[in-house]
């Protein structure tokens, strides 16, 4: 039986949100799974919050209802907090801990919560919380701009996606320019093994219906 799976990908303009969601969507198309995507952009170069919602299976709207995302993939920690409104209780929260400070914080008008505070707040919502320095893994892979691929790898490492790892890698090879492919694939693998090594429990059955 085909169930549904909702993934929210969040971050800040320029972090590669749209590519990440596009790879998920194109892979679904390839393996014959219905998919809809909602992208909030237009401010992509202007440091604003960006949001891509990906819905596998049967849906009408590309927008995930609040509290119905099975996984939240966050390229930036405060954006994880902001968009956790989409995450269902006990859904996967995969969060890059590297911060991008908003201008309101830089000018001293707002406070940026500590990583411990973010972790404390979100762990009240989900026991499947994974916060790690994905940017560092991307740097290890040779290009800090591939943090999005680390996070995609981590999502795949949850074993909740409705397609094989190889299918995602094929899409990466289709969509990423040749000269950046090595670091992208390396980052994907690093993210994937990070999650596989740190996963606390078997995949939550609530989201593994596909």
């Amino acid at each position: 039986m085909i169930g549904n799976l909702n993934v929210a990908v969040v971050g800040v303009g320029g972090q590669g949100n749209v590519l990440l969601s596009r790879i998920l969507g194109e892979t679904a198309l390839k393996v014959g799974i219905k998919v809809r995507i909602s992208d909030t952009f237009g401010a992509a170069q202007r440091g604003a919050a960006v949001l891509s919602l990906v819905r596998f299976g049967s849906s009408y709207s590309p927008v995930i209802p609040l509290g119905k995302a099975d996984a939240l993939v966050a390229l930036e920690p405060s954006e994880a907090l902001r968009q956790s409104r989409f995450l269902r209780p006990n859904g996967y929260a995969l969060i890059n801990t590297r911060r991008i400070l908003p201008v309101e914080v830089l000018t001293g008008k707002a406070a940026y919560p500590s990583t411990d505070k973010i972790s404390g707040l979100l762990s009240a919502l989900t026991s499947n919380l994974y916060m790690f320095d994905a940017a560092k893994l991307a740097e290890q892979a040779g290009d800090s701009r591939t943090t999005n691929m680390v996070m995609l790898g981590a999502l795949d490492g949850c074993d909740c996606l409705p397609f094989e790892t190889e299918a995602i890698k094929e899409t990466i090879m289709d969509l990423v320019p040749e000269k950046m492919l090595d670091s992208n694939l390396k980052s994907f693998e690093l993210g994937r093994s990070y999650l596989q090594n740190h996963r606390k429990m078997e995949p939550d059955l609530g989201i593994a219906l596909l």
Partner: protein
Amino acid sequence: MAKSSLEQMLLSPDAGQSALLMTNHAIARAAIEAGARIVTGYPGTPSSEIIESIGSVADSLGIHVEWAVNEKVALEVASAGAIAGIRAMTVMKHVGLNVASDILMVLGLSGVNGGMVIVVGDDPGGWVSQNEQDSRLYARMADVPMFEPSNPQEALRMTVQAFEVSERVQLPVIVRTTLKVSHGSGIVTFGPIANSKKRGEYVKDVNRYYVADVVAQSRHEWQHQQMKKMRSLLRSLKLNPLTLKKGQSIGIVSSGGAYNFAAESIRNLDLQDRVAMLKVETSHPLPDDKMRRILTKTREVLVVEETEPVMEDHLRMLTYGLKRHAVIHGKRTGALPGTNELTYEIVASSLAKLAGIHIRRNKKETEVRAAIADAVPPRGWTLCAGCPHIGTFYALKRLTKKTGKGKIANLGDIGCIGLAALPPLENVDTSFCMGSSIAQAAGLAYAGVDMPIVASIGDSTFFHSGIAPLIDAVANDAHICVLICDNETTAMTGHQPHPGTGITASGKSTKKIRIEDVVRAVGVEFLEITDAFNVTETYRAIERALKHPGPSVVIARGPCAELTRRQARRLGTKPRAYVIHSEKCKGYDCRVCLREFGCPAILWDNDLQKATIDSTLCNGCGLCTQVCVFQAITQPVGADALQ
């Protein structure tokens, strides 16, 4: 999607092939399938991707594609193609239709011969616009058909159909999308590419095309006949699906993006057996027969639409003379909010209430989510690192400070310059509509306002709507300074070319129209051109301009930071990032670079208690060195720079 593969998709000859496309790209594909020969528009979120993507393949298909100077010109250009019998399309955002409305109101009278489709992207909530006006009211006012798709596949099918219908009734057809639909992606199956007429033919007919006086009167009657034809055509078009089963006591009438929320609410609340659905796809003319059926066969009707209660009012009108009909719920009755975008949550809770279903909420979860929401720092928009406008508005800010707090009236305009209203620059006072800054500045001067008056406007906006008010200001000798912030592109909407760039929508070189030539030609006697990356130069120029007794113009010029970055990427170089020498930085008590200037590449290092520059964000423009009087910021030279 990688660009090359999008081009392949748009050109694909394989009917039946499937692709993952954004609605805007599906509309581009539809124009190609329908064989549009002229495609025009002006950039504006959420519609910009349509022309952009057609531009990348236009030459190979023999399409004349153009980013017109504004929407009025865009529609006029395309309409002539349709009058000459070829298929034409014009694309704009909702407020662009205000600009194009002048020709739209006449085009229904003359009618067209080739299919003419106007795509308009609405922005319920006004997230990226000055308002949330509802374009369906324009379709009614101009009395031309309007289609409203809900997803990419429908956008493809209905846009192709719009070309066919336009030819059958000889009227332009509007296709309306909304933000969430425009930028939503889904799997789309292609149709065949039509072999349409390639050359237009102009057949003179003053009784049709000289629209005025008695011709306008007779054509108005003709237009009514055509719309009558359109109404009878509705029955054969297989649009406006109605699912109505016996015993269903609730009916929903919905359209566009709002329909998706309504359909999903029915499914998630498990109300398929109780709720009938009329999905309206022709927002004008509305499907009266089906609307009457759902009104008479159900007891309650919920109207789910964005943004104005257009269908709700129409349904109420249709109840006139009906012996028995459903109670109508919608924006007028408070069942749904009268402003802003709808969401799934709003629609589902309204439907649940009507159906007598109680949606349970987990109290603990609500508390947890409230605590999270409290801790989220805001993240507003900013100008980019290396943006020339930061230099220009920092100069204006210093000048404003010198003349006393708030002592310069700075009227703003549409585009990136509006972001200079945000902290820390906080130096643009107003934003109304394209080009309004100049005429409103003049109006303040005529009103006798005792302040120096500046109108700030971007380059693309100047070409769009700034030239006429500048002529007006010269002709009436307004004592204002027009500050044209020229970043050499239409930056806010994604770097589309404009007449000042010398590039066409398909990427070809063309005559470059220089802003300074236009300014001089309309009789402006004071003109200075400054380097936007030189704060002192711009500061002094504005200061001199304001002393000039009549209208003056300062062009602060510097390429958009994103253009600089793209060029560096093409050349395989990296910008040479500046560094802050922490021993020279005065620390927390100063922070002028953060509190007053605000380049996003300058960060605060909490451990050091000093400002620092993120070398990956720095564009190497050097503006910040003009801000720090302690000379703590320098650009590494020689071996240091080569990392």
